[in-house]
């Protein structure tokens, strides 16, 4: 039985919608970007987190690493409540210790590297902050990292603008690996890359996972890459997880009606007998004012009267399959 490395419990993130007056600022509404979600990630696996724009997948990841403070809820890393630790700003050493284990790879490799720094400076930054290596070893470790991500020694002297998107993403991955983390959040790491470069980065991520025993949270709206890289997948809709399951069951026999709609909306690259894309009527409702009960009920073909009032909880239906639906498929 593998043990979970990350456990998220009742995580909530509310963004207030403010109206600025001359003298005071009033809160006119709130956006529940992450609405009470819980899940855990097993050591060595890749959990895919998918959903359409505005569903809260990136906010979830950002709150997990305290890039935005959460409203409530907790995140455990090996039984330490890390959000609590982050909040306590005085424990600098403890925070650095946690940061070493959990790292983040950003979406846009053009924005995630400091344009004024050479790659060497960028890769030395983690060593400078954490001081986990004597300075004499920095250079060797940097060369190791470059080799690990498939770059060469002379790349260290270059600046980000001299690199292609794929190479920059390699640097971003190397920077995250510099502190020997156990867990990486990959936030749309290939979305801004060209088709032929995507494969090389996805392969690199798999290779690193095998070599270093990493655990990933892979966030993407591109379902084909999620299918390729993930072990299990969680589907989010309007701030909630509606389904969490192993990757094959989720893609082949989705239980939630939203998951089903999402899966059948993906155009498959196969022209034989052109696929009839399932059309989900309407659009995602506003996050500011989501429908009561099950958020998906206004668009759901199998909605029951109680779907309008009862919020379905994420419950286990069958082995390792979780779904938040009163009337699953």
């Amino acid at each position, binding site marked *: 039985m593998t043990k979970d490395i990350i456990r998220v419990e009742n995580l909530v993130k509310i963004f207030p919608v403010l109206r600025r007056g001359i003298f005071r600022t009033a809160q006119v509404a709130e956006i529940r970007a992450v609405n009470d979600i819980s899940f855990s990630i097993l050591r060595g696996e890749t959990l895919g987190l998918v959903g359409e724009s505005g569903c809260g997948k990136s906010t979830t990841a950002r709150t997990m690493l305290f890039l935005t403070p959460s409203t409530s809820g907790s995140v455990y890393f090996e039984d330490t409540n890390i959000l609590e630790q982050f909040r306590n700003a005085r424990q600098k050493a403890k925070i650095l210790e946690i940061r070493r284990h959990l790292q983040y790879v950003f979406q846009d490799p053009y924005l995630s590297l400091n344009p*004024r720094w050479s790659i060497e400076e960028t890769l030395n930054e983690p060593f400078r902050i954490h001081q986990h290596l004597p300075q004499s070893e920095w250079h060797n470790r940097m060369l190791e990292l470059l080799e690990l991500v498939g770059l060469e020694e002379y790349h260290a002297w270059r600046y980000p603008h001299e690199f292609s998107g794929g190479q920059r993403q390699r640097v971003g991955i190397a920077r995250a690996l510099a502190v020997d983390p156990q867990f990486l959040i990959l936030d749309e790491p290939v979305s801004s890359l060209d088709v032929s470069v995507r494969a090389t980065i996805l392969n690199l991520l798999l290779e690193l996972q095998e070599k270093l025993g990493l655990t990933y949270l892979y966030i993407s709206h591109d379902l084909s890459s999620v299918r390729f890289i993930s072990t299990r997948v969680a589907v989010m809709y309007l701030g909630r997880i509606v389904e969490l399951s192993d990757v094959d069951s989720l893609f082949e026999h989705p239980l939630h009606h939203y998951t089903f709609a999402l899966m059948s909306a993906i155009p498959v690259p196969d022209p034989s007998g052109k696929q009839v894309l399932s059309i989900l009527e309407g659009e995602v409702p506003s996050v500011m004012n989501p429908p009561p009960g099950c958020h998906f009920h206004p668009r759901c073909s199998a909605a029951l009267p109680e779907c309008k009032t009862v919020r379905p909880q994420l419950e286990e239906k069958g082995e390792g399959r979780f779904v938040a639906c009163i009337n699953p498929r």
Partner: protein
Amino acid sequence: MTHQEEKNIPISKGSETVRKTRGPGMWRLAWQRFKRNKTGVFGLVLVLIVLFFAMVGPWISPYEPNDQSAMLEFRSKSPPTWKNLLGTDRMGYDVASRVIYGARTALFVGLGSMVVAAVFGILMGGLSGFTGGMADELLMRFTEFFLVIPVFVVILVMVRIFGIVVVGTVLERIPHLNLIAIIVILGVFGWPPIARIARAEFLRLKEMEFVEAARCLGAGTLNIIFRHILPNALPSLVVIIALGVGQSILLEAMISFLGFGDPKSVSWGQLLYFNYEHLKISPWASIAPGMAIFITVLGFNLLADGMTDAFNPRLKE
């Protein structure tokens, strides 16, 4: 065969060859682009000429700046001659010497006031942009207050009041006291544009992914401000500061022209003030300092323009 993407691939003839040396950084790249910009280089040349005269002034100037001996020889208001290359003015000063010494004053005023303004502006704007919220609101309202008051009139009043207040105090013994006062006042009133740019840059940069990446690694606030945000904000700030230098020089010239300047220092505005009544009799005494002001301000403006293009290549293409 995983990372084949950019590795071990024979790059074909005709394509760029792999360069295994240190690449140019952002500043060097900006300089390379700047060199191609003709107007920018022209501005730089103008500024360098002014700088040259300011530095070697005492050695190349034909007369002392306060030498009025021409008056005794009845050569005041003399047109340009071999003895006085740009003529003399109605007080018997050699115009060329006064203009050369004026370059020092102009640069002293321009750069000095902008140092004051930059310190204030970056501090205010940076704090405002980085912290956000209430502090931002307050600081920006304060900045706007400075932007809407008729600065020039206020400066004139302050210069005059200061001139009266110091009479008879120990402060009077400080050389060029009035000029220093003008510099500080120009700086104090010149910071709002810099603060606005600094705020906008800090706001933009603090949300950038590379700043978040640094936070993910556990970098502290000071580390993020001084190593990530400020260096990336500098290009925009340098441009607005270069524009400000030209502005300050112009303002000082106007202050001196209206007779509010420092009587003890040699300034182009003051030369105009001494001679504008004799514009018809001895135009050379007004034209030369006028040209000097024009060249200097133009130089700084073109330089700033060139730098904008060099730092933001996309604006042009």
